[in-house]
């Protein structure tokens, strides 16, 4: 059997990321706790969400140390979900309009 040593990184890296995830989670909870509304709310929620997701995938799941071939194979296909989101946004707007026109009384 080929000697595969696998992913070896200092424990400190994980502890730092763990701490960062705690801080980011606290921030996203604060967004709700202090009733931030409107554009700022959406922006902050999505910002903290993407930062947390990025840290988990890059460090905890070791994606930043994988070769580009694997990174592309896993990370690019989910982008197709944005097309679905776009289509369903159009669909939802249309449904809402129809409901307002025909069911509002």
């Amino acid at each position, binding site marked *: 059997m080929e000697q595969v040593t*696998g992913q070896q990184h200092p424990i400190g890296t994980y502890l730092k990321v*763990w701490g960062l995830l705690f801080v980011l989670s606290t921030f996203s909870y604060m967004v709700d706790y202090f009733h931030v509304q409107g554009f700022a709310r959406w922006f902050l929620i999505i910002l903290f969400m993407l930062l947390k997701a990025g840290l988990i995938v890059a460090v905890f799941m070791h994606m930043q140390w994988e070769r580009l071939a694997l990174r592309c194979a896993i990370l690019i296909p*989910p982008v197709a*979900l944005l097309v679905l989101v776009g289509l369903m946004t159009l669909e939802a707007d249309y449904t*809402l309009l129809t409901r307002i026109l025909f069911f509002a009384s």
Partner: protein
Amino acid sequence: MAHQDTMNETPAATTLTGAPPTDGWYGMVEDWASDRQAFRNVPWGKAMMWLFLLSDTFIFGCFLTSYMTVRMSTTVPWPNPSEVFALTIGGAHIPLILIAIMTFILISSSGTMAMAVNFAYRRDRARTTALMLATAALGATFVGMQAFEWTKLIVDEGVRPWANPFGAAQFGSTFFMITGFHGFHVTVGVIYLSVVALKVLRGDYERRGNYQIVEIAGLYWHFVDLVWVFIFAFFYLW
């Protein structure tokens, strides 16, 4: 040359010319184009787990997108999750506190899992087992809190998949579907991690000299945490 048996290629093999593999974009083109194993240095188990997680991404993606669709298209106001999931602790009314605690628990379990993978590659069986069992215990705590949350909503508040006292009926169906499917993943993960932890303790992987399985189990667990990040943002905070 063209019919070279790819099964006998070792993962760390160099290119056909004997040169070390190139990195970056050239490396990617070489990896995909050279009529051989595309994922270098990646064991099959890990590649397959990644592909499974990719397919799971689409499942959760569909759930969250359908949640977006029904929430955008309803004419009835959406219930305020901040209030629905508030708890009164010691006389203080704290919004969304249960979900916040669940989030911290799941992040902590990801931290212990990452360290378990590290100790596994150092062949520290005792620490690996302890950290994996800690991860499973935190996961079980998460599921327990979710059961508490569901009970509170179903029994006390009367939330049903088809109706609820707070507002739009779709709230119940999407809530039970999304958190239920995620909770199911956590439950499966707790069982999976416990089995692997006990096998580590028994020395199964020591005999084989291969601790990849701990990293593969870890990938699954981190993915469960990853999905929760998106559920937390889109369902509970939005």
